[in-house]
């Protein structure tokens, strides 16, 4: 019914709903803030973890995830609220783009909307709020870039920065007590990549057993496969042929081919021909004179036997990524045809030693002293698969941040320093701006300041007092001050060595403000009738 009382005809489908104006806005605010509140307790070094329990029949107690990673938490949640979905979406993008800060981005967007809601209640039009936020974002971004520093990529300072950044990222995770150890490990792994940003080349092998401290970065490269029975278990000075070829029986690839014979003899003949073809292929492979043969596909008994007879160690059924890593580590070319043995020198990979090793209870193949050494392996040990999974996620976060830092090179101080600086910049700007937008700029500053506040709260410290002291320190011109979360005081970040990657902060700021703006602009939510699902 409209205001006058006329009965309006039904325009949308049954079960579809339309919320307008205040109602729509309320819905988005509630949804977005709820999501932000959900993840905000995981923020900071004293943040808590969440248990994610899958729903659905038969899975109640299996696959439980314990995590502190914002993106993982948000990804696994089912939410109905569209604004909440937007927050989840930005968290995912943050994960894909920089790998860390996934909680921060959702919390910041949520805090912005919380402040926005207050402004709306004061009867300030959303467009004015957005206009203010836009000014604030530019100011904050400028300040953020101004306070960042850059070191030469080869210098010792840069290396130290990387370790500090990794330590900061890891400090909020489960492995915080061993963060120095892992920070060092991650930095070494990333530096091995020599500037390439392909994370695939860092393999993480998780093996339950031992303690977290038993994890290590292998100086060689480990392939999670076994050497075929009957071959040598230890090869020194190996020449490796990496192949992707069918070694079962070679299918005839010409379309429409059919074998049609009229006698048993012919069958035998063809079988022999087939065998010969295989042998021919093996011979061609042998011409390359490898000592190790790694194939992506299965190798049948016959060719395996032929190869083993020639003293070649065979590794079959290596997965695609594993192959690429072997190729990257040993400098081999991935072959599918074998007609150019004269290129043997170019295509074969080299390494000093290949041996079968036992980690825990599993047999693996270890390549040491590789030619190019661009791929590497991190072996994680831990008491349970849940711990290992969480350590894996933490390491992944740290690696992502490090790679981003290597690319971007700029760093800022951590411990809430950058947020407080940005907030200060926004507040200065708010004093200069005429009109209602100024309220929104102040609100932006408050939202930014919420991040260190939440970190304090999570640590059980008196956030109100700490943040005020923090403000005062900054005002005094102490640009390296930040939260010391071990003592609950304001400390000097350069002494504590807490650094963060500029790119992560930048991306979080931009994504959060874009998302908040997007939600703020909405004045109408139309939900279509849900699609009817037929139960099988």
């Amino acid at each position, binding site marked *: 019914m409209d205001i006058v009382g006329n009965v309006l005809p039904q*325009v949308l489908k049954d079960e579809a709903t339309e919320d307008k104006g205040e109602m729509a806005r309320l819905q*988005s605010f509630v949804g977005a803030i709820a999501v932000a509140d959900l993840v905000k307790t995981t923020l900071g070094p004293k943040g808590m973890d969440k248990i994610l329990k899958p729903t659905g029949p038969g899975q109640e107690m299996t696959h439980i995830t314990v995590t502190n990673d914002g993106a993982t938490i948000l990804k696994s949640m089912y939410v109905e609220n569209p604004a909440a979905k937007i927050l989840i979406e930005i968290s995912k993008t943050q994960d894909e783009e920089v790998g860390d800060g996934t909680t921060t981005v959702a919390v910041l967007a949520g805090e912005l909307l919380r402040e926005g809601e207050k402004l709306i209640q004061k009867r300030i039009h959303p467009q004015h709020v957005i206009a203010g936020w836009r000014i604030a974002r530019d100011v904050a971004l400028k300040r953020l870039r101004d306070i960042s520093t850059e070191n030469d990529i080869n210098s010792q300072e840069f290396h130290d920065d990387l370790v500090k950044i990794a330590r900061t990222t890891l400090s909020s995770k489960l492995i915080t007590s061993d963060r120095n150890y892992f920070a060092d490990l991650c930095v070494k792994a990333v530096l091995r990549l020599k500037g390439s940003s392909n994370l695939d080349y860092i393999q993480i092998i998780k093996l339950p057993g031992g303690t977290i401290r038993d994890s290590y970065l292998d100086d060689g490269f480990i392939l999670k496969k076994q050497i075929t029975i009957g071959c040598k278990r230890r090869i020194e000075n190996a020449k490796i042929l990496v192949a992707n070829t069918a070694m079962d029986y070679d299918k005839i*690839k010409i379309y429409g*081919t059919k074998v049609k014979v009229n006698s048993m003899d012919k069958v035998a003949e063809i079988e022999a021909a087939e065998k010969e073809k295989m042998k021919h292929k093996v011979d061609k492979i042998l011409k390359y004179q490898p000592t190790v043969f790694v194939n992506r596909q299965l190798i049948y008994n016959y060719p395996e036997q032929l190869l083993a007879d020639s003293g070649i160690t065979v590794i079959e059924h290596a997965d695609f990524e594993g192959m690429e890593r072997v190729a990257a580590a040993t400098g081999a070319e991935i072959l599918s045809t074998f007609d150019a043995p004269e290129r043997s020198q170019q295509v074969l990979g080299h390494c000093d030693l290949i041996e079968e090793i036992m980690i825990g209870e599993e047999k693996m193949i270890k390549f040491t002293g590789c030619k190019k050494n661009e791929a590497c392996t991190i072996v994680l040990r831990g008491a349970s698969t849940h711990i290992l999974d969480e350590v894996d996620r933490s390491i992944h976060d740290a690696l992502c941040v490090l790679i981003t830092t290597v690319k971007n090179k700029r760093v800022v101080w951590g411990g809430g320093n950058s947020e407080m600086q940005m907030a200060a910049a926004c507040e200065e700007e708010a004093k200069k701006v005429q009109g209602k937008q100024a309220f929104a700029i102040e609100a932006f500053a408050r939202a930014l300041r919420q991040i260190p506040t939440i970190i304090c709260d999570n640590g059980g410290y008196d956030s109100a007092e700490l943040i005020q002291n923090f403000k005062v320190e900054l005002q005094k011109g102490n640009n390296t001050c930040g939260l010391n979360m071990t003592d609950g005081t304001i400390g000097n970040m350069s002494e504590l060595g807490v650094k963060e990657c500029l790119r992560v902060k930048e991306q979080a700021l931009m994504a959060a403000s874009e998302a908040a703006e997007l939600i703020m602009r909405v004045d109408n939510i139309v939900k*279509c009738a*849900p699609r009817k699902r037929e139960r099988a």
Partner: protein
Amino acid sequence: MSLAFDDYGRPYIILRDQGQKKRMKGLEAYKSNILAAKAVANTLSSSLGPKGMDKMLVSPDGDVSVTNDGATIVEKMEIQHPTAKLLVELSQSQDAEIGDGTTGVVVLAGKLLEQALTLLDKGIHPLKISDGFDRACDVAIKHLETISEEIDIQANEHEALIQAACTALGSKVVSKRKRELGKIAVTAVLDVADLARRDVNLDLIKIQTKTGGSVEDTRLISGILIDKDMSHPQMPKEVNDAKICLLTCPFEPPKPKTKHNINISSAEDYKKLYQQEQQYFIDMVNLVKASGANIALCQWGFDDEANHLLLQNELPAVRWVSGTDVELIAMATGARIIPRFQEITPEKLGKAGCVKEVQFGTSNERMLVIENCQCTKAVTILIRGGSQMIVDEAKRSIHDAICVIRNLIKDNRIVYGGGSAELACAIQVLQYADEVSSVEQYAIRSFADALEGIPCCLADNCGLNPITSVAQAKSRQLKENNPRIGIDCMELGTTDMKEQRIYETLSSKKQQIQLATQVVKMILKIDDVIAPDDY
């Protein structure tokens, strides 16, 4: 009831399955139709103008999209009511024809229907109303042409085009970067435009999206971006001075279309066949290599063996390139699409300055950029943004802007925005109304009122007092005889739209008024709605 009686007094049924049908007739039908259509228009009206708000739409599968684009909103609302659906089509036809102004057209139709409702209450026949609207529409269109101005699209580094693009982008979520995005859109269109024929083939502008970064990172690539990577991980990631071989046949043994069987009956046959097969691969690669190509792009897949042969011969290749991309690359690089290996000749190769692989973020996603193509007639706009929703909305916004620029290249006449053109037309229509002596006079007057509804709505959305500001603008237009006075939406302190440089294309405005009038006429002609009851 549609129940009739025959000569003997027995009832017979005219409509089949009458009991299961819902029927509305006469005034009831008119009003129901108009109210339904108005409901849609009302939803859209708050999206109009630079300070318009967005709508959040949740699809049946729970996917969320946020948009300001009229055509997208009505399309995703899944409207059920038959008359309201007419408005959906209205918005879509504006989108197809012009590409911009999809919200405005629906809002105008809504205002017209609102007026029609009061006229119906006065007891005026619907056909008289639609006649009046028709005549008023003609007057308005004619007046639009007289107040339109030709602009020089070349002057001042295409400043006029950029301004028009900014006007189109101003109402979207990307409005903060409207100047930058406007420039990107203008450059893109001008790169591919055929200025002699005043035509733009929009297929040549590819809009690729990628989440991550922010809207500021959106950029124009003078070349083509395809979402593919090299077929073999060890192929070179960059090919300079590329000679591109564009294939639409797979690197696999041929598959004749005729049904056939090859029977192998002896070991010799088997061996021969094997050799033949090997030969195929070698021949294929050699043929490509012999033509002088240094990169092969293929619409189909490769066999592992062929793939390695390509690597061995230092011939980087890309597989599974989509059909549209193949055509685009062909146009841009001057390559001929080659359907058979035997037909590869050096002349058929396309040339580009550089083909390289670029990587985004940490997720290891790679794309190929083909830059400095021989005939630079294809460009790609790579849109970045914090989330999928923003990227999608930015894509729609840029599409709108591109359409506006194209329309300006086709027809460089503009009218001024901010509701000034509608206001000027309303004044003209009102004058004309007094000359008409029949009942239509009322309809024509109402048409003028409806046109005024647009600036009213704009003012409303910007938080101005609609009645005061429209009255002021109207009186100034009359006093100064200046059709460029509109609503100062951006609060810049002037109501002269020429000073604010709010440009809209004449073709879009004309189309809006014409289409809206047509749909309203159509709705006014319906006096009977028969539908299944449970619909």
